[in-house]
């Protein structure tokens, strides 16, 4: 931890000092989260076969539990894309490209980002709250005392599950979204269904799919790391204690996850394009 700069500086330095302190605290927390994530990843490879049952439970909680939400959101996202895309493309007389527009928008951007944000809101917040409550009610201490690594028991299965579930949910989002675009474009607005699908086939290339799944893997790591980290250290928060600390940890887990997701999305998009 950094030391606070003494108060002997002239007042006009205060904003600079405040920004500096915030920046150092931010960097320090980012570093702590990176170490936390690496520790969690390392524990994934522990020889215990008992990790399987925890992994399957987390796949169920994060994946199966989010399935209907993802399907619903993706259906309406695809339908809106179809509608907006149709009216925009019709201005240029190129409504035949609706399939390409919907598919590429979903695969390259919307599917990984919206899936990650939805999972953050549904499963990530629950993760932060659950681990936070375990922390303040001594359950994590109890695990340590029983010589059961809380990282192996609580964090690793969640990281592992996110690496499996995020790409799957992203794929589901993409497929259902394309079907949503089909509903508005083909069924409601009368575009030829052969044109819709052939444009998708001709415009989507392997690198789009690889980029989509790469993003979903990175987003999965970000969401689970941030949410688990915030819950795990809920007892060390300066802005509250007990239930309040868990609430604040959950809020900051969701907010920080969303900020990091969009930042990472920009970085990844600029690398992948």
């Amino acid at each position: 931890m950094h030391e606070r700069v003494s108060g002997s500086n002239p007042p006009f330095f205060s904003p600079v000092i405040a920004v500096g302190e915030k920046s150092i605290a931010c960097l320090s927390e980012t570093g702590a989260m990176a170490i936390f994530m690496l520790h969690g990843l390392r524990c994934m490879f522990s020889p215990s076969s008992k990790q399987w049952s925890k992994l399957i439970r987390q796949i169920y909680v994060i994946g199966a539990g989010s399935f209907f939400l993802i399907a619903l959101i993706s259906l309406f996202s695809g339908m809106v894309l179809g509608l907006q895309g149709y009216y925009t493309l019709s201005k240029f007389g190129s409504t035949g490209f609706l399939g390409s527009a919907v598919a590429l928008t979903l695969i390259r951007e919307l599917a990984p980002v919206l899936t990650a944000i939805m999972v953050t809101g549904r499963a990530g917040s629950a993760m932060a709250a659950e681990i936070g409550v375990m922390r303040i009610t001594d359950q994590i201490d109890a695990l340590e005392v029983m010589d059961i690594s809380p990282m192996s028991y609580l964090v690793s299965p969640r990281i592992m599950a996110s690496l499996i579930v995020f790409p799957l949910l992203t794929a589901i989002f993409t497929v259902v979204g394309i079907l949503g675009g089909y509903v508005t474009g083909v069924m409601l607005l009368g575009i030829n269904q052969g044109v819709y699908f052939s444009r998708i086939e001709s415009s989507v290339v392997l690198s789009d799919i690889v980029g989509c799944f790469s993003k979903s893997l990175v987003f999965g790591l970000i969401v689970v790391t941030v949410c688990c980290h915030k819950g795990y250290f809920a007892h060390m928060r300066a802005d509250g204690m007990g239930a309040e600390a868990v609430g604040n940890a959950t809020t900051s887990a969701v907010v920080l996850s969303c900020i990091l997701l969009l930042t990472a999305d920009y970085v990844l998009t600029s690398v992948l394009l």
Partner: protein
Amino acid sequence: MRYSWTIELQDLRLGYGDTVILENITATLPAGCISVILGASGGGKSTLLRHIIGLARPFSGKILLGGKDLFSLPGKEFRLLRRRMGVLFQDGALLGALTVGENVGLPLTEHTDLPPSLVREVVLHKLALVGLADFADHYPSELSGGMRKRAGLARALVTDPPILLCDEPTSGLDPVSAAQMDDLLLDMKCRFPGMTIVSVSHDMASVRNIADHVLVLHKKNIVYAGGLSGLEESADPYLRRFLDRKAPRYSFGDDPRLTLSEETQKIMHQALDSRLERG
């Protein structure tokens, strides 16, 4: 019982961050006895327990468990030593996602390859010892506070540890449940001869029921270490207040805030009454 371990505290100085909570702590908690760490709320009892468990590292000094210095052991040995402690946390600290039976069997399922049927047999035996054999398939949220503590005790005992540490086992319990918990600890002492049982408490009735050896903490130090009879006979004013449950009389001086003017009280009560009338 496989072991008989004493706990030796040697010149401990401990706390959190820059705050020293206890210092010059030297004592021996004998094997085969129930030792009670007694002291006022916020006096460092639970902090001392957390250090004995190995959840926090002292600023200086040693904690010897069965002759081994807990904090000078390399990682693997430290972990092995800690596996030999059973700990009952204040509210049981049962994992909410697991049933009571799964909670109790957790150390066995995580550290061994025992067949589930054998683990189940051991779990039911330990739960029977605390009177909860019929609750193995219940979730902790379905149990009362006292039952959760007893389930926590069963989990602490599942590996037959040579050391059992209990953090305020009777706090928050009604007198009957508290007495039941005391009886359980006495029963454990008989069933597992040689087990070192350490309990943190400020409940004098419980201390009188179970303690063989008492350690009293006050103002960062040990003010008494010895048998219960010696404690009862002590003439030390702090110990007497503690034993006789008498608080020192506070003097507030002539603080004007001690009196609330009649006018203010009248306005406040009128406001509350009118709110009630309005519903």
